[in-house]
């Protein structure tokens, strides 16, 4: 894709005016940083960071029979989570799986309380076209699949996020983690969820695209809030132990290998009825041959995606994400290793430029989550 084909979010002009460095990402011009990744990362951990994630796809599934339960049952053919059990005003994390149990995308599924007829999905930017095509081919008998191009998505993340938003609308303070609601922020009526991708407490706000600049400017006008780029978004999610699709998850990884079994509720594990169930059942019964784990690396040199993990002179795995953790001042990574090397505390070596760096399989998250349960 050439530079000219890149899309812009409704906030691109404000990013440039704020001095952001814009980079191509998933078909969009996106801000990778404003003042610097480390400063933005630490600000989000201490105060509140505002992220433009409008490149992501918001898709409504509107049931033909007007019942959200129907949309939930239909969607369950493609994802392993218990969507039927999702209560109004709640959302859940899950994955689109292929027939072999490989992950096509990971996504959030929300059941908004104010609409009895639908679910709202948030999918990754790079996968949204394929996700929509998959749903069109498999779910169109039961639901209308409606990409919400009229909405922009922004995320306010960090320990001060609640106080910042509650000053606009106190209703947000009562929302639980993974709750779905509506609020009036900077004069704009919008849908929001209490969730995010940083490990911090926070919210994702779906804002009418033609009003999002007004909301963005009001929030960044608060002295507790700074705009944060994709660079810090990546270092924050890595410290939080959260997967990045296309790196830590792809069609060659299953949710069980990826340590996402928690996202497959009990009914689905026994009943199945979703693409890839045979593989998932086998992974659960026999244990997966490899697992996603975290690594702490000695010294200061970061190890990156693609670096080999070695134990006893033999390759036992590969990194899928790795970098410097600003909150820890140390390198961290995640990747897949053979299951017999996946135990916490297992000593391994990670190969970087021909040198073996000493590392240890470490529990994730690397930095404790700040969710409001």
């Amino acid at each position: 894709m050439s530079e000219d084909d890149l899309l812009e979010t409704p906030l691109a002009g404000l990013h440039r005016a704020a001095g952001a460095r814009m980079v191509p990402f998933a078909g969009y011009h996106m801000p990778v940083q404003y003042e610097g990744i480390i400063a933005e990362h630490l600000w989000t951990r201490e105060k509140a960071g505002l992220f433009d994630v409008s490149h992501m796809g918001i898709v409504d599934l509107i049931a033909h029979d007007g019942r959200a339960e129907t949309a939930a049952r239909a969607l369950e053919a493609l994802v392993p989570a218990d969507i039927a059990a999702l209560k109004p005003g709640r959302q859940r994390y899950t994955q689109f799986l292929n027939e072999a149990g490989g992950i096509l995308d990971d996504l959030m599924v929300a059941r908004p309380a104010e609409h009895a007829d639908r679910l709202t999905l948030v999918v990754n930017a790079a996968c949204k076209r394929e996700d929509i095509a998959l749903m069109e081919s498999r779910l169109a008998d039961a639901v209308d699949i409606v990409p919400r191009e009229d909405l922009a998505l922004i995320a306010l993340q960090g320990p001060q996020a609640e106080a910042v938003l509650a000053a606009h609308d106190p209703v947000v303070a009562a929302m639980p983690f993974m709750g779905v609601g509506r609020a009036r922020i900077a004069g704009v009526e919008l849908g929001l969820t209490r969730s995010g991708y940083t490990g911090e407490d926070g919210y994702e706000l779906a804002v009418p695209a033609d009003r999002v600049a007004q909301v963005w400017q009001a929030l960044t006008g608060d002295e507790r809030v700074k705009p944060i780029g994709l660079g810090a978004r990546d270092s924050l999610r890595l410290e939080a132990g959260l997967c990045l699709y296309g790196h830590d998850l792809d069609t060659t990884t299953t949710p069980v290998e990826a340590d996402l079994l928690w996202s497959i509720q009990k009914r689905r594990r026994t009943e199945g009825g979703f693409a890839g169930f045979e593989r998932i059942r086998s992974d659960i019964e026999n244990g997966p041959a490899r697992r996603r784990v975290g690594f702490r690396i000695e010294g200061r040199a970061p190890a990156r995606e693609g670096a080999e993990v070695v134990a006893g002179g033999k390759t036992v795995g590969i990194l899928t994400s790795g970098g410097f953790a600003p909150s820890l001042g140390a390198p961290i990574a995640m990747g897949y290793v053979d299951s017999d090397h996946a135990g916490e505390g297992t000593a391994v070596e990670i190969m970087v430029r021909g040198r073996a760096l000493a590392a240890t399989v470490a529990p994730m998250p690397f930095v404790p989550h700040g969710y409001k349960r």
Partner: protein
Amino acid sequence: MKKYTEDHEWVAIEGDTATVGISSYAQAQLGDVVFVEVPEAGRAVTKGGDAAVVESVKAASEVYAPASGTVSAGNDALADNPALVNEDPEGAGWFFQMTLADPAELDGLMDEAAYKAYLETL
């Protein structure tokens, strides 16, 4: 005399000794530097070959030798304080010193004015 490469390294030349680092432009492009691997004294380097590695939060970048020769010192201060590369890229944030095999190899590099003009074209 200070010269620059198209890869955004600076080279301060005194006789047959050169001090090498990355330019202010390069450090700004990289962002926060979190790790630098400099060559040890005595290592032979060849013009255009790998000499050092600089890592930002996001990615690793190679630093190439601007000329052939022998490394006489690496900047050990960068091991504990890689942020020196951001704070003082063309001073305390130097990467390594080397003895040049042939100082004429540096003749083709840009002086400061030419490098500034080069940056305008990027």
